[in-house]
């Protein structure tokens, strides 16, 4: 396999692995916890590295997962004192743990393959140089790691799909039914930690959170079904990864940075264009409601003056502009819309309420 293909495959797997737990983080409103964990796992890696003196040891994953849970626990303890709120608690805990890790690396681990730049931004472009023979096949080491992480993610989420869904939607019911939502919460956080370790080698700690949160947030705007949201989140992550790779090639820039940028670009497109929840769809809906309301208002106005001596006067089109204080252009648009809805007919500059419009006005006034 060429280096280019290997890098793309890595990018795709890392994006997919991050996009899965991201869905639950977004739904539970704990996206910032992912940011915290993706930073503090570094401390776990450094501490385990000091003990085993090997950056390839599987113990690094265990250490990172443990520190991830420590992060969650410390944050919750701080929050339970009720002296700080959750966002502040996260903001206090993770920089503290992360900075300890940075000091340890810069002071004691200088020279080994663990430098601050790589930790922050990842080394996707160099990943194919560090190789491993698995089942007789020569593959990049990072590919093995992230494949294992992805499989762990898929296994955990499919095994506990029902339980995770219930605990996320209604933790109270989950608890009364005996599904231990706290345990599931910590399980999910351990999964996030493992994913962060697997991914940080490739894309760095800062961008892990973009790959976890952004595709899931975009998927949330596109569907109202949890399964579909998981699939879409992965699809958007994978698309961002590939688009990011080629963008980086084009600009001769950092691949991880380009990948994260593409998640942002896709999110923006979805935010504007999503069929039902997008900004554009909302705008169109609001416009339509306003137009419908104005047409109803016009029908009520005409109803009020039906049979009155001033009827002929009130129903004149140019009168609307003065009495209702509507701009001429706006009045014309409302009249056209009301005609389309079948509320009114305009005959020689006079408006006439149709039976439909009459019924509509009556209905609104009665409610």
């Amino acid at each position, binding site marked *: 396999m060429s280096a280019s293909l290997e890098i793309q495959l890595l990018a795709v797997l890392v994006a997919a692995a991050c996009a899965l737990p991201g869905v639950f983080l977004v*739904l539970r409103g704990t996206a910032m916890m992912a940011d915290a964990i993706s930073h503090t796992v570094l401390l776990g890696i450094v501490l385990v590295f000091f003990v085993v003196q090997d950056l390839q040891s599987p113990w690094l994953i265990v250490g990172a997962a443990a520190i991830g849970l420590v992060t969650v626990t410390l944050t919750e303890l701080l929050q339970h004192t009720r002296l700080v709120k959750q966002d502040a608690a996260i903001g206090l805990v993770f920089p503290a743990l992360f900075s300890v890790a940075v000091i340890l690396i810069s002071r004691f681990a200088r020279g080994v393959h663990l430098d601050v730049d790589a930790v922050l931004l990842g080394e996707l472009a160099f990943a194919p140089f560090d190789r491993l023979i698995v089942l007789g096949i020569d593959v990049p080491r990072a590919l093995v790691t992230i494949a294992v992480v992805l499989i762990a993610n898929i296994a955990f989420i499919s095994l506990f799909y029902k*339980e995770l869904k219930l605990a996320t939607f209604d933790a109270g*019911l989950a*608890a009364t039914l*005996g*599904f231990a939502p706290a345990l599931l919460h910590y399980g999910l956080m351990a999964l996030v930690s493992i994913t962060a370790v697997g991914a940080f080698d490739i894309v760095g700690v800062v961008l892990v959170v973009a790959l976890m949160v952004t595709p899931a947030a975009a998927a949330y705007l596109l569907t109202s079904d*949890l399964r579909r949201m998981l699939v879409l989140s992965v699809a958007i992550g994978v698309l961002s990864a590939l688009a990011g790779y080629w963008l980086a090639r084009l600009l001769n820039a950092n691949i991880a940075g380009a990948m994260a940028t593409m998640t942002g670009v896709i999110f923006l497109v979805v935010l504007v264009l999503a069929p039902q929840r997008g900004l554009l769809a909302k705008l169109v809906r609001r416009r339509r409601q306003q137009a419908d309301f104005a047409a109803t208002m016009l029908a009520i106005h005409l109803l009020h003056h039906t049979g009155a001596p001033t009827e002929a006067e009130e129903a004149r089109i140019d009168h609307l502009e003065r009495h209702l204080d509507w701009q001429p252009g706006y009045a014309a648009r409302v009249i056209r819309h009301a005609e389309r809805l079948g509320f009114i007919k305009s005959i020689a500059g006079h408006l006439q309420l149709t039976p439909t419009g009459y019924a509509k006005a009556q209905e609104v006034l009665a409610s």
Partner: protein
Amino acid sequence: MNPALEVTDLTVAYHDKPVLWDVDVTAPAGILMAIVGPNGAGKTTLMKAILGLTPVAAGSVRIDGKSYTQQRQRVGYVPQRGSVDWDFPTNVVDVVTMGRYGALGWFRRPGRREVDLAMHALEQVGMHDFAQRQISQLSGGQQQRVFLARAIVQDADIYFMDEPFQGVDATTERTIVTLLKQLRGDGKTVVVVHHDLQTVAEYFDWVTLLNVQCIASGPVGQVFTEENLRRTYGGRIAFVERDALATGGMALRSFAPAATAGGAD
């Protein structure tokens, strides 16, 4: 026969501030019981403590003679409607199916049977046509009926409902009342946190008057009296219709009607 619910000397505290003080409540099987009291009286806390959702400082809870953890499968819970995120990506029938998760246990997935039960329950609450509807598109009353359908499929023996009448339309209120009577007819026990003193005597058999301490608990005819209400609500009472009260004396109404009730108490 064991009482359906037996709460003994239950105390719940937040640090050194008691939320519930030495509460005793006993409910026989097959009754509809309202828990009423002013805002902050600990009604929701009592329910959560019974269900093991809130740690207790002292006291015990027995459900049909055994602890809650032993009776999980026989207990149904309808939390406050506002306690969940209705923008969660799922539809009505899926939420109702969640009521079967307890019976399924870990790992087993809901199948045809669970969906059939859910559809049947939706029929009972008049929400059959909404089965495929996204939950974000429901009105408050419809949300409440979905929660009730979810409780029905749990097929429990004792139900705990936290403010099911809170802010619902007239149709939903009627549906809930019919359902409560139907559950009682099936020999089930239902405990309801309730806010509207007017309807206590009409809807319920038993009532627990709560204000941090249990002021009184028993059949509506015996304990829903002016004297007990005065002790429960203190000075925050006003006069209303006479016939809403069991004793036919001067009826009282809380100054804090249902509309102001939040999820805080």
